[in-house]
């Protein structure tokens, strides 16, 4: 998934248009969409009972391995603060939409909440994130 997504981004970099958002947003959206599409295809091919079994192991992970050399560590800390400061219900709704690719209707069904409640939570949460990101970062990246 990663190799395919990055290769595609590299080869299609010329198609980037600033009117659609920042380069960072464009790249992250491409990776996210590719990963969610892949997982949806995989789940569609597997019976529900075996969905969590038999998945290929991912690449070895080494949390914190490069943190000391990461020039964006301070910025990430700021972004993590903005996300973790969201009220629990707003963060949950926003993360379900972003990381799991769920629609507003699917989120409402999973949470057992009215659709209007989910819309409000996402809107409030995204408003907070938008304001937090537009604030000065207080340090060079």
């Amino acid at each position, binding site marked *: 998934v990663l190799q395919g997504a990055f290769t595609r981004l590299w080869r299609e970099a010329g198609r980037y248009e600033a009117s659609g958002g920042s380069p960072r947003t464009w790249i992250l959206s491409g990776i996210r969409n590719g990963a969610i599409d892949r997982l949806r295809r995989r789940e569609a091919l597997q019976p529900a009972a075996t969905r969590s079994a038999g998945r290929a192991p991912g690449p070895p992970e080494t949390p914190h391995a490069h943190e000391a050399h990461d020039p964006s560590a301070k910025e*990430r800390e700021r972004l993590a603060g903005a996300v973790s400061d969201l009220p629990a219900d707003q963060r949950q709704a926003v993360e379900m939409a972003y990381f799991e690719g769920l629609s507003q209707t699917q989120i409402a069904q999973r949470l057992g909440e009215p659709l209007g409640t989910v819309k409000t939570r996402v809107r409030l949460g995204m408003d907070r994130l938008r304001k937090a990101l537009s604030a000065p970062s207080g340090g060079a990246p």
Partner: protein
Amino acid sequence: LTPQDLEGLAPLYALGALDGDDLARFSEELQGSESLRALVREYRDATAALPLSLEPLAPSPAGKGRLLDSVATPAQRSAPVFTRVFWAAAALLLAVALLRSLSAPPELPGMDLRGDRPAPSARGRIVWRARSVELTLTGLPALPPGQVYQLWHVGPAPRPVPVALFSVDADGRAQAWATLKYAVEKGDGFAVTREPAGGSPTCTLPLFVVPAP
């Protein structure tokens, strides 16, 4: 749709969460409104906070090598290498975290849970990988309107850290998925309480579910 309605739908559109009539009407309005497109751009840029706030995971050296080999075509280079590598690294972290959060092999580390005094028959388990958790519970009593169950991560901070809100079905079963603020460390625990709709920033007693001994 009023301008206020459209502004309210913009963050859902930016997240890709709009569906049904909302999506059709918003897409139509978007075609003719530069201000609405600008608002969607702002919300899209705000979504970058979500992956970039996650705990980073380093790629495997082999995977990185394959990737660099696959793009080693000089004609394709149209931007400074540093910029590309920097953002590629950020996106790589996102993708690994995303896959981790949605792929749940059965051998994941986890913790058995049991009901406490208000819900003695409750049983369940929570599993995690990196900062993604999946909670499964049975035997929880239904809650009155206006209340929800809330999962807490106990241990990484002086006070329990809110994790997720969830409800139970008619059979008392519940499932929840969430991203933790802190990685699970040895000695940490999880608990479930009953809270007002929308959840609480601080934990309210009594505990409905606690770690099994």
